[in-house]
């Protein structure tokens, strides 16, 4: 519960707006109750054939409540959604700021899809608690007291009975429903995971499973997982049925109670016959608010899981660090003109996972190029992130001019070293703005120059609006090769003197790729002509003759290092190069 409360607090709900929404909700459902009560009075009184004028207030009131219910309910929905949406914006902003200011690893280690789910669907789920959980509960509570007190004015015992029945419907039934949801979720989670994995396996590996004669066994496993889900749902269905029954029963009991207590009261003169009609018929409308609460309780259960995930992300990011806004300026000569990035006995890896790379030594300075090669999964990306100071080293040191990279200010770090990972983001904005991510004051000519340098000149020509062409988020409208080169161009325009580039030429045809990497390794110069240092992670060996040093990673260790020429003496390296060339010839 406390997790959900913490998350709801982050919504920063405005109490006045919430109170207005509750008042409107009470007005809407109260209109329905009042409609029922006044209509009962009207009919009972009319049967006594009074002068019509005596009924005129009631007839007007009934019609007014009839209109009021619909209109107030509409206003309440508008008000409550406004509150929830404001809350979601607040929560999203908090989430963004905390992730931006906290430990970099927190945002990096979550897969993109998961991150989007937390900021998207999970925040929505927490916001839903306001509209579908807290608000209905508050409305039902206020209304239960109002209605019971109103009935108690006619007959105190009837008011008490109604209150007891409302408690049964608004407290006991939702608790049962929440328990049912929990029971199902607890038992079904495992079975659901099995079901998904088995179904995926059957669809992904249909052929191999059929040939191996195992398709039937897997289908049986799918059926079994579904059977276990069904059993879990059955376990929850009992309490869920009880919850629904409790609501219906409570309403019936309230009517019966009013009849049983009211009839003697009329005979004893404690209450008029007309009032009897009111206390018997009002309960028929009084349970509408309560009937929404079991669903509200289930919503709270669902939102709790979402709240837990959001808070886990926040806790992982840590508390607000320094939140001074800084933008990197052009590299000014007064900054260290020639920073030296050095790694010593560096162990890289994600917290809680095995080491990706152990014992890496590396030194790069402007004018020097280093290539890190290895199969995919050899730890190249993890090593680059660690070198850039975005991942804490598991052991060893990364220094820039003898200062620990983690101790540098953001400005100092960014002007010394920047990494472009292969999954770096292409924003849903213009080409120019995408480049300006690296340097805010980049002008159009500089942008054209750098795009030409990475071989995107022709591509830019073909774009409908040139540099102002909108790109889709995540680069979905550009090809893989174009995306990589755009990211490379972004790295080149930045102020950093040392660039760490992850597979900059992936998805290009081999000739183009080799040209591009060779160019980067031989002349790693920025736009303004200042010398740069580069570390390029790649799995292609052909262009590496241009690198000052090649580091071969295999199974998490440095398997070999030296120049391309030195390494040709290594049989593994030579064979890999030959195979690479042979594959191309085969094409």
């Amino acid at each position, binding site marked *: 519960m406390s997790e959900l409360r913490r998350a709801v607090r982050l919504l920063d709900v405005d109490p006045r707006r919430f109170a207005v929404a509750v008042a409107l909700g009470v007005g809407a459902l109260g209109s329905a109750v009042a409609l029922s009560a006044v209509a009962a009075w009207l009919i009972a009184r009319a*049967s006594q054939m009074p002068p019509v004028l005596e009924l005129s207030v009631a007839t007007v009131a009934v019609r007014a409540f009839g209109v009021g219910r619909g209109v107030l309910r509409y206003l309440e929905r508008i008000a409550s959604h406004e509150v929830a949406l404001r809350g979601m914006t607040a929560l999203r902003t908090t989430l963004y700021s905390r992730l931006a200011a906290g430990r970099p690893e927190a945002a990096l280690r979550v897969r993109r899809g998961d991150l*989007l789910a937390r900021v998207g669907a999970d925040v929505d789920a927490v916001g839903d608690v306001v509209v579908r959980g807290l608000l209905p509960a508050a409305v039902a509570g206020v209304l239960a007291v109002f209605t019971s007190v109103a009935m108690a004015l006619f007959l105190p015992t009837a008011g008490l009975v109604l209150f007891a029945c409302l408690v049964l419907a608004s407290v006991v039934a939702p608790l049962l429903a929440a328990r049912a949801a929990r029971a199902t979720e607890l038992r079904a989670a495992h079975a659901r995971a099995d079901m998904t994995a088995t179904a995926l396996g059957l669809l992904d590996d249909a052929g191999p499973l059929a040939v191996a004669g195992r398709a039937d066994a897997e*289908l049986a496993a799918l059926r079994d997982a579904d059977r276990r889900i*069904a059993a879990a749902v059955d376990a929850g269905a009992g309490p869920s049925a009880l919850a629904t029954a409790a609501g219906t029963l409570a309403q019936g009991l309230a009517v019966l109670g009013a009849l049983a207590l009211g009839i003697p009261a009329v005979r004893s003169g404690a209450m008029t016959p007309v009032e009897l009609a009111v206390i018997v018929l009002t309960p028929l409308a009084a349970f509408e608010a309560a009937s929404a609460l079991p669903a509200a309780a289930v919503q709270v259960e669902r939102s709790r899981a979402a709240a837990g995930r959001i808070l886990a992300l926040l806790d992982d990011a840590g508390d607000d660090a320094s939140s001074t806004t800084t933008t990197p300026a052009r590299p000014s000569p007064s900054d260290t003109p020639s920073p030296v990035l050095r790694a010593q006995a560096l162990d890289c890896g994600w917290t809680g996972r095995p080491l990706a790379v152990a014992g890496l030594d590396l030194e790069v300075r402007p004018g020097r190029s280093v290539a890190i090669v290895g199969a995919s999964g050899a730890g190249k990306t993890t090593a680059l992130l660690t070198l850039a100071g975005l991942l804490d080293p598991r052991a060893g040191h990364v220094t820039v001019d003898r200062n620990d990279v983690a101790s540098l200010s953001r400005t100092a770090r960014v002007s010394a070293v920047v990494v472009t990972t292969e999954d770096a983001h292409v924003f849903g904005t213009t080409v120019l703005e995408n480049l300006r991510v690296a340097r805010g004051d980049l002008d159009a000519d500089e942008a054209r120059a750098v795009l030409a340098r990475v071989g995107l000149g022709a591509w830019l020509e073909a774009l409908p609006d040139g540099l102002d062409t909108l790109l889709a988020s995540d680069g979905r409208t550009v090809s893989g090769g174009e995306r990589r080169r755009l990211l490379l161009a972004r790295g080149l325009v930045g102020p950093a003197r040392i660039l760490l580039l992850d597979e900059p030429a992936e998805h290009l045809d081999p000739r183009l790729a080799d040209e591009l990497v060779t160019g980067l390794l031989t002349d790693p110069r920025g736009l303004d002509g200042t010398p740069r240092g580069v570390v390029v992670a790649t799995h292609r060996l052909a262009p590496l003759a241009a690198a000052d040093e090649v580091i071969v990673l295999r199974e998490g260790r440095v398997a070999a290092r030296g120049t391309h020429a030195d390494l040709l003496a290594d049989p593994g390296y030579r064979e890999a190069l030959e195979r690479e060339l042979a594959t191309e010839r085969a094409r």
Partner: protein
Amino acid sequence: MKPLDPRLLRYARSARGYLALTVALGLATAACAVAQALLIGHALGPVIADGASRAAVAPLVGWLAVVIAVRTAVVAVQERYAHRAATRAVAELRHQVVLAASRPGRHAAAARGPEVVTLATRGLDSLEPYFVRYLPQLVLAATVTPAALLVVLGLDWISAALVAGTIPLVPLFMWLVGVMTQGRSQRGLATMERLGAQVLDLVAGLPTLRAFGRELGPATRVRALGDAHRRATMGTLRIAFLSGMVLELLTTLCVALVAVGVGLRLVYGDVGLVVGLAVLVLAPEVFAPLRQVGLHFHASTDGVAAAEAAFAVLDEPAPVPGTRPAPSLADATLRLEGVSVRTPHGDFPHRLDLPLRPGRVLALAGPSGGGKSTAVEVALGLLAPDEGRVLLTSESPDVSLREDAPRSDDGAPGPVDLADVDLPSLWSQVAWLPQRPVLEPGTLAEAAGAADVTAAERDAAAARTGLDAVLAALPEGWDTPLGRGGVGLSVGQRQRVALTRVLLRPAPLVVLDEPTAHLDTAAEEVVLSTVRALREAGSTVLLVTHRPAVLAVADEVVTVAGHPAVGHDEPDSSDAVALGSVGTASGGAS
């Protein structure tokens, strides 16, 4: 869009009993609603009019208690079985969708389509609210609404006319509101989605912004976008909620007008008190299911959409399975003749001829994307070629003597088309190692087929495939439990487990689709050693490989290439004159 598709009942058998139960419960609810209104009217009437005693109306109150008990039981039973039926129906549909999507004959890419995966894992779950919430209310709208309306008609035709006149106004006004606001709400929806996507875009790019030290500025932008998103959303909701308001306004106002009308006629003695009370209780019952159907309309559209996606998969015609037993592959040739498979990009492969003779090692070479793996799927009967055929020709004379031996039309033993073959009888003679092998769940020994062989045998096999190095790193060795699909091992390690299994249980035909692990020279030696071992065991081997050293051990090499669609910029194949033709053995033991 039909609210209830009859195909749902055909494919999901659990839904049939549930629908019957729901209809029965719906009828019971209708009876209860009517009885409750009449009993309340008859119990209250005499007390209000004549001051009748509790004893006088006690039987009516007693019956009312019974009706309430029945109504309570009805909702409990409905709720109890709704979830159960929904889960079972979803499971039945899922099972059939997976079965249909994974059966041989469909193109692998189609079977794996992300929509089918989403449908089978999550999409069908949206049928649950459809079954649990929407369907019962739909049934109640067909039972309680007319029953209550009929009883009102019997009691007081003026009220009945008022109610009956309102019912058609509900959809009419909702439609009018929809038409009038459609343009606006669609524009609003588009803005809303765009703004929502922009926030997520910034968040997705956070690691990138961070790398460039520019992560702090956009926080204000996240807030500004959020506020714009809220305003756009509220604009859309103001319109979207209008239809809900019309629904509530019309139904509540109608109940109010019925009450006022009955009240005024009571004054003049045109109707009785009992009738007035009963009508007052019944009028909301007429509208309640209609309002609920409106409320759960979204549950219905999502559910119906999921069901229709499932029917689209299920209604696809299934290929007719063959019935003839496959000849023994130990002495039969499997031959692809002029096989082409169409893809949107052209034919991959294009007119491929491939003779797979018993006991020989045949390698498939060619550019990636040229259709090598597709050719394997065709050879195994997993995919029907769009052009050409696959024939199995038995070359052993004694087979023709057997009763069930395949014969051509004139009765002589002859080639059998793979399309007529009972595929499991072929597959039982095949061991296939795809690039990403799927291991049997259990221990490593079970997955490697090493559970029932001697330690010496399995260690020898492990040494050949390089599994020994993997085993050495595992504390539990052969007894290491593997998850579903061999979770816990890398693709390369799984490949070694699968290779070991092939060595320990050699099949007449072995298909090896070699993994492309860069910088891994050991892998090549493993494949070579395995192929040699299989050759000794007399197996036929079909290899997919790029490596020159592996090509060298093959008896024959076939280059597989595609034929790109005209105007499509696939890799140029002008130099590949011998498309799909049989190359000569380069240096094998032929």
